């Protein structure tokens, strides 16, 4: 199969590797051990595979791994440093925004990107809901997720 040599960084760690051109970024990340990146559909419907590429959240199942060449990728594994949770992770814990946890890594990455761009403390529920509409969660009803984003914004 055709492959391409690419360089990228994942959670600030550099990689240089031959990548099967057919593979999605989700597949490659999971093969490299970043299993927080979940497949809920594989076709861009659920957002469980959300990662940040150069700070922008996207469905890694729809994004070819070769497109990530020379880019910075972030997954939830890289967020917690030296055992210290980020404000977003902390708020998800505090607000009870986690049940089965399958949607959680993707949601946390969406919230993280959202809060890196929106620094105001009093975000409206509508803004938050809109920014998270690409991440399905069947367990929480989204209320605690909205609460968590509000709490994280204040941290």
């Amino acid at each position, binding site marked *: 199969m055709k492959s391409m040599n690419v360089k990228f960084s994942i959670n600030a760690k550099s990689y240089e590797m031959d990548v099967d051109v057919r593979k999605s970024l989700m597949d490659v990340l*999971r093969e490299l051990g*970043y*299993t*927080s990146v*979940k*497949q*809920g*559909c*594989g*076709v861009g*419907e*659920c957002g*469980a595979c959300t990662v940040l590429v150069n700070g922008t959240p996207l469905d890694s199942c729809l994004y070819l791994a070769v497109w990530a060449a020379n880019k910075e990728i972030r*997954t*939830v*594994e890289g*967020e*917690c440093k030296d055992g210290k*949770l980020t404000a977003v*992770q902390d708020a*998800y*814990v505090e*607000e*009870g925004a*986690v*049940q*089965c*946890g*399958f*949607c*959680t*890594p993707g949601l*946390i990455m969406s919230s993280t990107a959202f809060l890196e761009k929106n620094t105001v403390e009093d975000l409206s*529920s*509508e803004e*938050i*809901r*809109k920014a*998270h*509409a*690409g*991440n*399905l*969660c*069947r*367990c*929480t*009803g*989204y*209320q*605690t*997720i*909205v609460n968590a984003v509000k709490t994280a914004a204040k941290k």
Partner: protein
Amino acid sequence: MAVGQSNIRKDVIAKVTGKTRFTDDFTMPGMLHAKYVRSPIAHGLVKEIDCSAALAIAGVEAVFTYEDVPKTLFPTAGHPYALDPNYQDVADRLLLTDHVRFHGDEVAIVVARDHLSAEIGARAVVVEYEELPVCVTSEAALAKDAPAIHEGGNILKSTTFEKGGSLSDAEKSSDTIIEGTFSTPIVLHCHLENHTAYAYMDDNDHIVIVSSTQIPHICRRIVGQALDMPWSKVRVIKPYIGGGFGNKQDVVLEPMVAFLTSKLGGTPVKIELDREEGLVATRTRHSWSINARAGVTNDGVLNFMDLDVVSNTGAYASHGHSIPMAAGSKSCNLYPRSVTKFSATTHYANIPAAGAMRAYGSPQIFFGIEGLLEDAARAVGVDSVDFRIKNSVQPGDIISKTGNLEHSAAMIECLEKGREIIGWDVKKQQYAQQDGPIRRGLGVASFSYGSGTYPACVEIASCRLVLNQDGSVHMQIGATEIGQGSDTALAQMAAETLGVEYGAINVVSVQDTDVTPFDPGAYASRQTYISAPAVHESAEKLKAKILDHCREMTGDASEELDLINGVIIRLGNQHKVIELGELALDTYYNKDRGGQLSAEASTKTRTNAPSYGCTFVDLEVDIEMCAVTIKEIINVHDAGKIIHPLAAEGQVHGGMAMGIGMTLFEELLIDPESGWIYNGNLLDYKIPTAVDIPELSHAFVETFDPTSPYGNKSLGEPPTISQGPAIRNAILDATGVKINEMPMTPKVLFRYFNDAGLFDSPGKE
């Protein structure tokens, strides 16, 4: 005090940091991947199957067809085994079939070295079918000349019961009799993690299965049945699981992966359903039609309910008739002073198999009951909340179906609380005179549910506690954590009874049927209720052993001691004797006394505490746009003692969102002629996103039910029952139109509003 606190969930740090491993996150060297060959038609017989092209594909290792699988029919429903053959689940399934019964049925399976080759291989299998007539709807499946989908015909079972008095007497003493017909859609679970399982052999006669299942111990038994193996030769492991909502309360992939590894010399074989397969080829929520009648007196006393249900179970029985039976018995809890007649027929059809889904028939039956009672209240001019309060269950009532005494019901308090929070009386007046195109409406609906399945099924739970060297305690629990938080709630109970900090309890979340004590699994909102006595008993036993060891250490056999927050104290003067960690080291390593201290209990529960609650909703209807916007929605629950308020809130919100989805958006659409599935993907099957769900509110009326050592009752499923009827009743309040079907999409509302003449003279009712 751990119970009643919102302690940090046992699994939450692992989940927010991406460390939790779900089934698909494990891999083994040499693991093979399998892909089903699915039928493109809804009903037919395989005439010919040609696997040669598939076998020629690089990477394909094997193809198995219906000819290769055992001919033993097996059941799939996640119920405990029943000793009485009359209560055993219907065995109507083979691993693969040449008689396909729904669009997506399984005729063959391709095993390859990687997922993609398996998929290409599955497409290369050539199958020729003889098409048979298709029955999608109840009318078609129950028609006299309908083709038999299974041997013995299309009716799976019919039952009827009458409880709480005589229906004909109750009819005679009623001033008004109200009738209604209600229908509910096929709804899909849509847990975020698809069904995934793999299996390998670690001995010639021992199969290990790792699966995303709610019911590890039941899986073990059914795989044994399906493959004709001793049950103990099957080991089922459940890692973290990404939601189930009942869809994983069925044995789905486990017998197949076990079969494949057994045919392939024990090599690991994995099946990971893709989303589209998972939506149609696992289980669904039964679609129902309900013919309902109720009799009331002029002063608002409910005399009877007469409910007649037709439940479409689809291609295979799965939980089948148990669903209406369970819903029927729950419908007797809420208004126990009236007569309930309940009849139900469950039938096969050429649509995906329906199984267990959160609240197991109750969202369907309460859509009928609470819709009908709204009409009854309005017919006799009694306020909707007052009507319900007047007829609701109270402590001291006898539940007609079971004959049990109701201990703790706070149904009335729930209604009163909800009425106050939503501002019912004030809003009622505000909304009284509306004739514009945009109107507000208020709705209420109640529900009741059970805590477990007793007396229909055995209710068994187990717990094992082991004191570690460092004074912490490992807890192995038969109850299955699937995201709902049972590990946390049960750890709180153990900490409370044992007398240690919550943090000192380590829960072994992975279930392993070779190791974990027995419990049939996560369903029926049973786990915190049924496990409570097992946790309580094992914690008391371990505590007694710890205190005995302490007495051995102090040399005073008669000393009165207690264990409080991990410290052993003298009862009299409250002085510290020893820290638990220090004592634990002694139990392990003292050469002359002690041993590893552990305690275990396996308990059977013979009670089933009903839980209660209601939904209040305030919504806006835009008649011209046929659009409904929820302005405020509140669930109020009596779930007994709330063990973990934050997790309880999560259960309530999640259930509410699911209920709103079923009411306003969700339906699996199937062509009534061909059985072709139109929207078997998450783009076209609409589950709510964050923007589709309004702000959710909740409240609890805490009671203490004496049948649980911790006072708790069920809470997992109940939150999803009453949104449908509450929204229906609010739309009725706003427009005067009864929408007796779900989902209430704009298309459906248009039909009803049009029929009611709402568009004829805009601005007038």
